[in-house]
């Protein structure tokens, strides 16, 4: 197997791992990839970057909200709602699921539950960022060598 074929297989196996095995990503990620075309060859990278930039902002806002004397659970819920939306839109399944739990804790005004979720979100974001960077680097490698990325169905 030549280098390109090997990398393509690696890419495919890694996507399977992220989707099936670990549930980091769901079908929406595949949909996202399908949107990319010759007119917007960096579309997926742009969306992912935007997601992590936005996440950082939301996580900081949430952390600040918890440090206030009177915690505004409605405000935090609004941030979580945004985060839930964005993560669903890019197919970040685990993050989305934490957001669902987080929203329930916000509604119940359960401080401990909320703080646990916040921590979980911070961790999940960090992990996903690493995983996606690995995936995207593999893609760059394949493309730089003149190969093409496998098409997912």
């Amino acid at each position, binding site marked *: 197997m030549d280098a390109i074929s090997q990398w393509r297989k690696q890419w495919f196996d890694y996507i399977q791992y992220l989707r099936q095995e670990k549930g980091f990503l769901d079908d*929406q990620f595949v*949909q*996202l990839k*399908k*949107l990319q*075309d010759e*007119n*917007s060859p960096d*579309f997926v990278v*742009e*969306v992912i970057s*935007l*997601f992590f930039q*936005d996440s950082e902002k939301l996580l900081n806002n949430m952390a600040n909200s918890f440090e206030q004397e009177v915690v505004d659970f409605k405000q935090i819920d*609004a941030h979580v*709602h*945004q985060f*839930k*939306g*964005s993560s*669903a*839109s*890019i197919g970040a399944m685990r993050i989305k699921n934490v957001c669902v739990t987080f929203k329930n804790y916000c509604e119940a005004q359960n401080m401990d539950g909320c703080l646990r979720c916040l921590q979980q979100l911070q961790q999940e974001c960090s992990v996903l960022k690493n995983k996606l960077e690995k995936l995207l680097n593999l893609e760059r490698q394949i493309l730089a060598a003149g190969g093409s990325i496998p098409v997912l169905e």
Partner: protein
Amino acid sequence: MESGSASSSSKALMENIVDQPHVLAVDDNVIDRKLVEKLLKNSSCKVTTAENGTRALEFLGLGDHRHNSLEGNVSKVNLIITDYCMPGMTGYDLLKKIKESSVMKEVPVVIMSSENVPTRINKCLEEGAQMFMIKPLKQSDIKRLRCHLMNSRT
């Protein structure tokens, strides 16, 4: 669904929808705005995005500083697609304002939401929304939207 005779502005809308419709997409979420824009552009639409209802109304010329369109009663856009859950003015509020406007009320409005709430959906359809779509949207949803809009013109 609208009833009554097709006015000249409705005809113009129908013709435009076939070629390259101009769509106004409203969503407070930056990622969703980027996605819906791409989905629409992939379907040969011209797209303007707005991050909230107020900006959307300003773009449509229905804002606080109202101005009369000197070009007559033809709307700038052929379709408005808006998120439901937005802070301040919701998609439903925006829908109502659009339907209250003599210039804009003929323009189809589609509501999107990540939540599948039947009462919410019915409320929007009753207020005159053309369609209600569940997020995240796919390319097939936009195709369906275009077909539906073309077929609903009688």
